Every structure is written in structure tokens, then in C-alpha cells.
């Protein structure tokens, strides 16, 4: 199953919020939708969910126009919200019914998800009586009640303690294994790196970068080396004096000594020259930018 959004545009009262957004998400994979606040993520998600139509562009599943009765979408909104004064099972069942289930199935599915998330004891409690973290889990359960084919998670990890975060990670991994399309939106880059094979970075209503995360990282110039050593001073000195032809930049970072070569092809030469010096070197690798760096690079003003 493949979800494609093609050339979506949307304006609100003459303000262009989305300018030709195109996305692809494959079932059995998670796709990370990144962007700064106000970049257009929520609008994109809402168009995918059919809350309102885009001004132009289409959304297709396996080449056919999306039929939201056939393909159910589960949505965990960034702004969490359910009925505060209603019993948990009752409102989960209601949300399942709204998604087209009959009430018996919705009830069964609600109970199943409450069990999976370890929330059974709260089945007949009112939402307000729960702690924030537990409300968060209920919200997730409510997202998944309808057994959706497409799961959209907006900042799913915010407010969860490490144990609950682990539980959520397991659930997300299960969803991926179950061949669902998972759309992931978060500002916590480590989670995106952990789950998402593909990413799309939105900035000011445009996709500024999209594709396979590994390939994106690999596409960066591989001429930067990181050297881990207890003798950083000496190595730095050596680079400045003897290797000043190939080393064009030096930087001490928390990761280690960052050495910028003038070209990636000089890597081997650099390695052999350095190893001849017999410094105590713990490790050496080609630097790859983190998703965080990539994100900042593409979305900085």
C-alpha cells in the first residue's frame, strides 16, 4: 500500500499555507514529517484526513483516489483532547463508532487496546481522574481503536516517562510490522531517526527535503573525519604543520576532533599518514550529519 500526496496546495484567507506539497508513504514503513512550528504539517495532515480539501492536488492510495471509508485513518493530534468528563470506555467506543465500526466491535477493540497499554483498571474511570501520562496513553488507544490502516502520530512521545515511551515504541514497531502506513511528526529527532526510513522536511509551506534518511545522510560530502583520541592536541598540531595541504579545517567538538579534508578522495592518504605517527587513537570515522543538523540546515531563516 502506498500513500501519495501530490502537489497539495492550500490557502487560508489569501495566505498560502501549502505550496505544492508532495509526499510518499509506504506501508510497513514509518515516514517522518518534520517542520518548524507553522510550517504546514497540521494542514497537510488535515488534508490527508479529509477535514478540508486542498485547493489543488490529489491524495491517492495505490494510484486510486483515497476512499476514507475503506482506508481508516487513526490520528493522534498534537493538541490532545477527549471528553474530560466521560468514562474512558464509553468515549473510546464512540470514537470507534464514528469511524464506522459497529458498537460491539468498537467496544471489543477498545478493551483490547486498553489491555495492550496496561490501562484496563481505568476502563470505567472518567478521563479527568487520570494523570497526564495516562491520559496520553488513552489518547493513543483512542487513535488505534478503529484498527486504522494509516496511523498519523503527532508528537506521540511528549509527556511520556521513559517506561511509557518504551511501550509506545513497541506499539509503533508493531504497527510497522503489521504493514500499516505510519506518519510520524515530531520535533524529537532521535525518535524520528529511530523509526523513520523516509523523511520529509517542510518549511514555510514547501517541502525542502525528502527521501530516504540514510541516503540523505550519505549524500553529504564524506570529506569530514572525526578522530577520537587522548592526544587531540598533538594530532591537531600534526595536522596544522605536516598535513596542512589536505586539512582545510579543524574543530574540537564533543564528539571528538573534527577534521575537514579538502576532498573525500584524500581519506585513505590521511588515514595512512596519521597512523604512521603512532598516536593513541581510539577511533576514527567519517562524519555523518545528524537529523538535527540536517533539519536546522534546511529550516534556518
Amino acid at each position: 500500500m502506498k500513500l501519495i500526496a501530490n502537489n497539495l496546495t492550500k490557502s487560508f484567507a489569501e495566505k498560502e499555507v501549502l505550496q505544492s506539497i508532495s509526499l510518499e508513504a509506504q506501508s510497513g514503513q514509518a515516514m517522518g514529517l518534520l517542520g518548524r512550528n507553522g510550517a504546514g504539517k497540521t494542514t497537510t495532515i488535515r488534508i490527508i484526513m479529509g477535514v478540508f480539501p486542498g485547493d489543488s492536488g490529489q491524495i491517492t492510495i495505490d494510484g486510486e483516489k483515497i476512499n476514507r471509508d475503506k482506508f481508516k485513518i487513526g490520528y493522534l493530534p498534537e493538541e490532545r483532547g477527549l471528553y474530560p468528563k466521560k468514562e474512558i470506555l464509553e468515549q473510546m467506543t464512540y470514537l470507534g463508532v464514528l469511524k464506522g465500526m459497529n458498537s460491539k466491535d468498537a467496544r471489543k477493540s477498545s478493551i483490547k487496546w486498553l489491555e495492550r497499554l496496561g490501562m484496563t483498571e481505568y476502563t470505567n474511570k472518567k478521563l479527568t481522574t487520570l494523570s497526564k501520562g495516562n491520559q496520553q496513553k488513552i489518547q493513543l488507544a483512542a487513535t488505534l481503536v478503529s484498527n486504522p490502516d494509516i496511523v498519523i502520530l503527532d508528537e506521540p512521545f511528549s509527556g511520556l516517562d521513559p517506561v511509557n515511551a518504551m511501550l509506545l515504541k513497541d506499539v509503533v514497531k508493531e504497527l510497522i510490522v503489521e504493514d500499516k502506513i505510519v506518519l510520524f511528526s515530531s520535533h524529537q529527532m532521535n525518535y524520528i531517526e529511530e523509526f523513520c526510513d523516509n523523511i520529509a522536511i517542510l518549511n514555510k509551506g514547501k517541502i525542502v527535503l525528502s527521501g530516504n534518511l540514510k541516503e540523505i545522510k550519505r549524500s553529504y560530502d564524506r570529506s569530514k573525519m572525526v578522530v577520537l583520541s587522548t592526544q587531540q592536541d598533538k594530532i591537531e598540531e600534526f595536522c596544522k604543520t605536516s598535513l596542512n595541504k589536505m586539512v582545510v579545517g579543524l574543530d574540537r567538538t564533543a564528539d571528538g576532533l573534527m577534521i575537514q579534508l579538502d576532498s573525500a578522495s584524500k581519506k585513505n592518504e590521511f588515514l595512512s599518514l596519521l597512523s604512521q605517527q603512532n598516536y593513541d587513537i581510539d577511533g576514527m570515522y567519517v562524519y555523518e550529519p545528524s537529523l538535527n543538523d540536517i533539519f536546522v540546515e534546511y529550516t534556518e531563516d
Partner: protein
Amino acid sequence: MKQFINILKFEYGTYLKNKAFIIITILMMLIVGVGLTVPRIIDMVENKKGDTNVGDTDVDDTELPIVAFVDNFSTDIQASLTLFQEKLPDKEIVLVDIDESEIKKSVEEGKYESAVVVTGAKNYKYIVNDIKMYDTTRDSIKEIMIYKYRVDTMQSLGLSMDQTNDLLNVEIQGEVVQSGKDQFMNFIYTYVMVFALYIVIMLYGQLVASGVASEKSSRAMELLITSAKPSSLMFGKVIGIGLAGLTQMVLIISSGVISFILNKDFIDGSGMLSQVLDIPASTLVYMLIFFVLGYFIYAFMYAALASLASRVEDMTTLVMPVTLIFVVMFMVTMMSMSSGNVDSTLMKVCSFLPITSPMAMFVRITMGNVKFFEIIISIVLLIGSTLGIGYLASGIYRMGVLLYGKTPKPSEIFKMLKSSR
């Protein structure tokens, strides 16, 4: 459609299961039911010592209160006593021959309920412990004294007994030919109905508004809007609450009706109330039509405006204009009713304007002169506008529920409405 039914069921159930809603309903049922039983309870308490057979109002069985009678003036004291007894059939008049201070004492002690001391042709004293709220004896005695004075004077002028009786007990044969409506009789039930209409629209309209606003402020809307069509959400809510309100009203009215039937003899001995409540069926039909349409047109406006609020507090400000219009319309209607002129130009205009017609036209139907085709025009206009406002409201609602932050200005709302079409 299925979705709409589900939402409707959910909303209806929400209120039926709501504790405050249940408590208010039961409380109102009790107030109405017990309230109508109060006359019976009073009757029971008062007749307790007299007889255990409470419902029986047979006069002969019960002991009549004794009224002491002293006449220091009339020549024929016996005739005077007979006259008093005749005119006060529910009292036992006893002639006594003791002085005033002693009578006072006896009345205080409860030996006599009260006492009448005739001291002159136009003078008397009425001695009583407490004057009750509805003490008719006081007025009766005054009337008897006037009657007696007239009889005595006419006879002293030389008229025979028959002549005086003829003069004093003259019976005039008259007949009222009524071509319009009896405004007085209609006034009472119209008043009650207009008041009920006011309360229903205000109460349930506000319930719709706060329902929408709280769904938005709790952000439950984020999920709802991605699960169901906004129009289903709005219509489901408005109709659901309407049905809940109808259920509540039916329960309260039934409680009143049952209580009224059970206690009819005690409340309505004279049959006056039954006469007032003898409402023509057509009026009830009109009432239902205006109740339903009035509720919908206002509930739609409330829902649309409340959808623009980010928080419940903002909602109150947003719906204020609608509430104000409604209150003004209520006052205008009430004032026209009490002035008796329900067919004034203002009321005529109001009875066709859809926002004001549910009350104004209803009052004109029951108390004024209005032609059948005028009623039909008014209802058709109202139905048309209700549908129109429902359509507009669902458009505003659709955008409103996704708006957070600053409340949009009216001009912005129009712009959005236009661009969303």
C-alpha cells in the same frame, strides 16, 4: 446519515445520563407535582380534627365556625340575626348578650371565630383574632350592613317589603356577544406558553453553545472533526439536545398534568382553572410548531457562534448578541400582551421576522386578530430561514471548530465563508 444518527444518540445519551440534568428534571417534576398537591395538603391538615373523610366537602357534616353576634341598634334583632345567617351560610351566627370586652376575650380564647357588633345604622365592629389572607367574612359583613341599611331606609320611606326586595335584588338579563377572542382567558395560557418558549430556547440554546465550546476547549473536537463530518456533528448535537429537552419538558408537564387531574377538586373548585386551561387544539399545534422552529433557529445560531470560541469564556461574549435580541423580543412580546394590543405595527412586523416570529406570531394567534394565510406566511418564512440559517451555521461551524486563538471578526467570518464555498 449513519454517522449523524450515532452522534445524535451519543448527544442525547450524554444529557440523559448527566447527573445535573437528571436531578433538575426530577426536582422540577417534584416541584410541579407537589406544588399542585399543596391545596389538598392544606385541606387535609385543616380538616384533620373534623373528620377523617378528607375529600368530603359536605357542609352538614362539619362543624361550622361560630360567629358571635351583638346588635345594640336594630329594633328587630331577630330579623337582623336571620339576615346575617342567610348571608353567611358557612358560619354559625350566635346571638350573645355580653359586653364588648368580654366578647374580645372569648374571641381570643377561641370560643368564637369572630364577632360582629352592630352599633348603629352605618356602624359596626368586626372582632377577629387574625385576619387571614383570604378572609371574605370581613367584606361580606360590610355588604350585609349596606344591604341592611338600604332595606331599613327604604322601608322607613314607605316602601313595602316586596318593593324593597325587587329593588335590591334586581336581575338584569344580559348577553355578551363575542366576535373576537377573550383576551383575559387566553392571556393566562399564552403568558405561560410564551414564558415556557423563552425558557426552552434560552436554556437549551445555551446548552448547545456550551456543548460546542467545551468540545472545542477540551480539544475533543480535534478527534471528532477527523472522524465525522462537521455538519453531522452540528446537526447531531442540536437535534440531540433538542430531543433531550423535549424529554425533560414532557416529563415535567406530565407530572403537572397527572398531579392536576388527581387534585382537581382541591385546586379548582370553581372550575375557573379548567376553563382557562381549555386550550384549543389548534393553539397547541401552533405552539409545537413555534417551539420546534424557534429552538432550531436559535440553536443553530448558538452553535455557529460558539464554534468560533476557543474557550468557554469567549463563548459567552460571542453568543451575547443573539441572547440580547432574544431577550428584547421577549420583552416586546410581554409588553404588548399586557397592554392588550398585540396587533400593533411593531408586533405585526415582528410576527413575520423569522427571529422574532416564534413568539410574536404565537401571541397574535392566541390573543389578536390574524388571518390564516398570515400564519402560513409566517411559518413558511420561519421554516425557510431556519433551513437557511442551519446551512450557514454548518458552514461557519465547519471552519470555526478548527480555529483557535483570536476570535475572528464578523468580516473575517464572511470572507472565510465565501472562500469555503
